[in-house]
């Protein structure tokens, strides 16, 4: 591979689907340039989330961003939602081709 790769953070959030509208708003506010949402199923602290209907549906949100943005998002979501909603977050390092796409918001 000859193209240069840069390090960015991949933040993954797995949470109740009912949070999607609020989450999307928070992500934009905290400087994420984009996100990817997929429907998800699984089991955890909140029991079986089989996605058969709205109340048992989960989503998996992925955000590629810089370190500061990832930290801001994790802190805000943890403070605002972790206590009352099913939510799991984790951050990994990933190598991306075009790092400019995944910077925080200007300023």
């Amino acid at each position, binding site marked *: 591979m000859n193209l240069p790769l840069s390090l960015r953070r991949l933040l993954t959030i797995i949470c*109740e689907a*009912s949070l999607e509208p*609020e989450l999307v708003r928070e992500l934009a506010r905290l400087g994420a340039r984009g996100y990817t949402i997929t*429907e998800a199923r699984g089991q955890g602290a909140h*029991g*079986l989330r*089989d*996605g*058969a*209907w*709205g*109340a*048992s*549906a989960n989503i998996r949100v992925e955000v590629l961003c810089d370190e500061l943005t990832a930290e801001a998002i994790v802190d805000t979501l943890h403070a605002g*939602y972790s*206590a*009352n*909603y099913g939510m799991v977050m984790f951050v990994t390092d990933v190598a991306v081709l075009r790092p400019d796409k995944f910077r925080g918001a200007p300023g």
Partner: protein
Amino acid sequence: MPFEPVILFFVLGLVAGIVRSDLKLPGVVYEALSIFLLLAIGLKGGVELSRHNVADLALPALVIVAVALLIPLAAFPVLQRLGRLPRADAASIAAHYGSVSVVTFAVASSYLASRGEPAEGYMVVFLALLELPALVMGVALARRGAADTRWGKLFHEVLAGKSIVLLGGGLLIGWLAGPEGIQPLDRVFFDLFKGMLAFFLLEMGLVVAGRLADLRRAGVFLAVFAVLMPLAGGLLGVLTANLLDFSVGGAMLLATLYASASYIAAPAAMRIAVPEANPALSIGASLGITFPFNLLVGVPTYHWLASHLAGVI
């Protein structure tokens, strides 16, 4: 048969879920079916509404909504004091029971239709009107005037939610188009209705089977509440209908509206507006017990009540 045969599909789904069959309706099918049912119910009510003077419904609508608010107001202290539930849970469950279940209403309507018992067709208007007020009441009970209540989000969640958009939209389209205008759509919306309802009930059986674990968590008090509350609501509905001079069929439908507990709009709204309430409790009670109870026992009971109490007020 003492009950509506279409509920056998619900029983089938329930059994399939309990024996861990690999039967599974994809989430998109559930979505599509609920969109169809809401729109069809709205259209049907709208067509009936076009035969009436809408202004005549204002007073009954006011009475019906006002009386309906007694349900969460009565349920809340029972849940909080007798059930010793935290304030948020008591309020959220009260909101579920004050709001209505569209599918229970649909089953009650087909129960009446299969017996040739006429009813006021515009009852759907009340179905649409009864969804929101109890949810607002529930949030008010949970918050008791706290400043940080997200009313805007709640109103948006419910009023822009698919059930109000489709029911209200269907009502409006049916009302504007009238019987002749809707006739070309009859085959899709009215002839297929019962088949779609059967599919939806099959799916609901599977969903309820999946919530049985929640039911154990809910405990004995909530289980008893989930059976007695709809009976009390049903009685209140029959009496209110008598007051408004509804037919036996209309009284039975109003009883079903008061007896039913929401499990689509209410869980979504409470999740946003009262996030500290445990959804396993409210959904376990409303969907796990009250919904099947109403299908199997409640609907025939409300019909019996409506027939025997006709004209007491």
